[in-house]
């Protein structure tokens, strides 16, 4: 079968799954929840997916993941609303949107901004999914040939990249990654059949599940941070009517290449480990501010400076699904939580996912086309509805989310033990967030730790204890080198900058 027929056949299969009434309904629920979570300041995609995950228990796995993925890419759209109207980003990936979006809204141009952002997001998101449809089967097939040493090195790369690039301090990222791995070793060691760090506690024998940890850190921790600060938001009063959404011809001309560039940047950055939607949006903004013909307007409301980054973060969120689904290695906090959700339903992401559960893998991919279409409608005509949600005070919203974290943690195993773990990590999460210790490496270590260890042990039994196996195989060597570069990247950058100063 040719490549094109292959993709068409699989997408056909995917749409036959995604277009059942139940799955359409839950994709709609997912993207709507995503838009709301995106719009709420302080609550981003990790928090949203972690906190709402327990709602999917007992659902059909495909339906559940369709909804959770909908939340993830829905956040990328919704985050714009609060960036533009209250000058406060709803998600880390829309931080940059406030710079141009807020002045535009103040000048009474919120309508066309939303319309063009929705369009750019749609182009970025859809292109991302299209590339995912093309790249996924390829990568999955190649990945089937990877052995344990390559897998181990790949996971090291993912963790190193996240530690090195995601936070402000790579050292803190490394410590958090190590902490995640240590936590993942608690309980029964599958590879050796012994107990580790259980201290005679029956509960500890099952190990520390990553879900209560994620719900605690990203849910309760975030609520604590928001409630401690408690800032009141000034909602910009603009009437958004259907007619005010229409952009001018000049707007169209200004944004068309920004959308194209943002989309391409976004997808590539999204696929790379450690980077993701936030970095993609920053890169796109930097590109537009250099290439624009209206450079003097940047910072004062240049429409291409918001439409480009918004196209980029949507393309990136689709791009981030590529390594997660085909290799089973997530590159960000949100995709790590999604990976955990896959595993919870007994679906191990990776090359075999496409072979053993094609209706699931392709159903989720196809649903992303559908979801992006729904999001365009939601984020243009229904903007006023979402704006009214922004009017609910933080002091009512945050307690509600706190209740959700408690119920959610309980329903993981119908057990209070998970609630206590959630609360402990919630309190820790507050300190992590306040003192800038990145939490994504911890989650990634916790999720990937057991897999990395199994592949590590297998590799060494293949080589009879010789560590050379990790560098003797070229792909493994390249992956490890990539990991080294990304962890030392901040250091390398500093040295290069210093060198340049000396030359000047």
């Amino acid at each position, binding site marked *: 079968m040719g490549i094109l027929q292959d993709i068409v056949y699989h997408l056909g299969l995917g749409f036959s799954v995604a277009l059942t009434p139940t799955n359409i309904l839950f994709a709609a629920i997912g993207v709507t929840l995503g838009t709301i979570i995106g719009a709420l300041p302080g609550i981003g995609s990790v928090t949203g997916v972690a906190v709402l995950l327990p709602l999917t228990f007992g659902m059909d796995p495909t339906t559940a993941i369709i909804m959770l993925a909908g939340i993830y890419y829905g956040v990328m759209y919704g985050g714009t609303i609060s960036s533009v109207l209250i000058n406060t980003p709803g998600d880390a990936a829309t931080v940059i949107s406030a710079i141009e979006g807020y002045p535009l809204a103040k000048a009474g141009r919120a309508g066309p901004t939303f319309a063009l952002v929705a369009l750019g997001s749609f182009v970025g998101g859809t292109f991302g999914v299209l590339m995912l449809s093309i790249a996924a089967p390829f990568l999955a097939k190649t990945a089937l040939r990877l052995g344990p040493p390559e897998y181990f090195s790949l996971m090291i790369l993912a963790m190193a990249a996240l530690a090195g690039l995601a936070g402000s301090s790579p050292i803190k990222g490394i410590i958090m990654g190590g902490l995640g791995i240590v936590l993942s070793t608690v309980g029964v060691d599958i590879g050796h059949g012994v107990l580790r760090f259980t201290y005679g506690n029956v509960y500890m024998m099952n190990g520390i599940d990553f879900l209560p940890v994620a719900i605690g850190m990203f849910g309760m921790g975030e609520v604590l941070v928001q409630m401690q600060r408690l800032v009141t938001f000034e909602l910009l009063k603009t009437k958004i009517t259907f007619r005010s959404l229409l952009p001018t011809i000049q707007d169209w001309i200004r944004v068309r290449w920004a959308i194209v560039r943002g989309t391409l940047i976004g997808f590539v950055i999204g696929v790379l480990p450690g980077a993701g939607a936030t970095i993609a949006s920053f890169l796109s903004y930097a590109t537009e501010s250099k290439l624009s013909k209206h450079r003097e307007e940047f910072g004062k409301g240049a429409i291409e400076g918001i439409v480009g980054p918004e196209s980029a973060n949507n393309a990136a969120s689709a791009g981030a699904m590529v390594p997660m689904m085909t290799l089973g290695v997530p590159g960000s906090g949100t995709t790590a939580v999604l990976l955990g959700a896959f595993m919870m339903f007994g679906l191990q992401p990776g090359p075999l996912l496409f072979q053993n559960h094609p209706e699931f893998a392709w159903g989720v991919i196809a649903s992303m086309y559908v979801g992006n279409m729904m999001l365009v409608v939601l984020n243009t005509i229904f903007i006023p509805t979402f704006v009214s949600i922004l009017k609910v005070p933080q002091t*009512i919203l945050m307690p509600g989310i706190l209740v959700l974290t408690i119920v959610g943690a309980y329903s993981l195993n119908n057990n209070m033990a998970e609630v206590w773990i959630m609360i402990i990590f919630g309190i820790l999460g507050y300190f992590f967030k306040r003192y800038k210790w990145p939490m994504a490496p911890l989650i990634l270590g916790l999720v990937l730790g057991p897999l990395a260890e199994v592949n590590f042990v297998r590799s060494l039994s293949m080589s009879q204890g010789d560590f050379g196996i990790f560098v003797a195989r070229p792909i493994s060597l390249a992956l490890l080198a990539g990991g080294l570069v990304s962890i030392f990247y901040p250091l390398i950058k500093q040295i290069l900058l210093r060198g340049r100063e000396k030359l000047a």
Partner: protein
Amino acid sequence: MRQADIIGALISIFFGVFVITQALGLEYWWRFGPGPGFVPLWSGVLILSGGVLLFITSVRRPPDTMEPVNPEGRKRLITITVLTVLAAVAMNYLGFGTTMFLFMALLVGGVGRHRWYVTLGSALLVSVTFYLVFVKWLLVPLPKGVFGF
């Protein structure tokens, strides 16, 4: 931030040493490869060396100031944390519905200082909605308590 980083570094060093000592109790090497102690030991080394590095880099940094936590914010933070712990304890005795109603009411009315009808309304809305979704729809056997819900 500098002071906080130094404290964080010391905690990491302490935790790293703890992990290493615990991992040494497990077998490091088996006949055909790493034993159960291998990964924990090296993770401990990673945490310890990260802590040492962070300590050195932070000590050499000039002192700075952080955005201070206002007393009001600190009070809210402690109140919410204590209430959450109390709610988790109370859930087994009072039941999920009752506990969450009280929890919401205390947070919205006490911490958020909203008017009584806003407090009552949001507490009712949240506890009833979650009860319907989780107990009636998802069939999660949440604690029932003395009142039966």
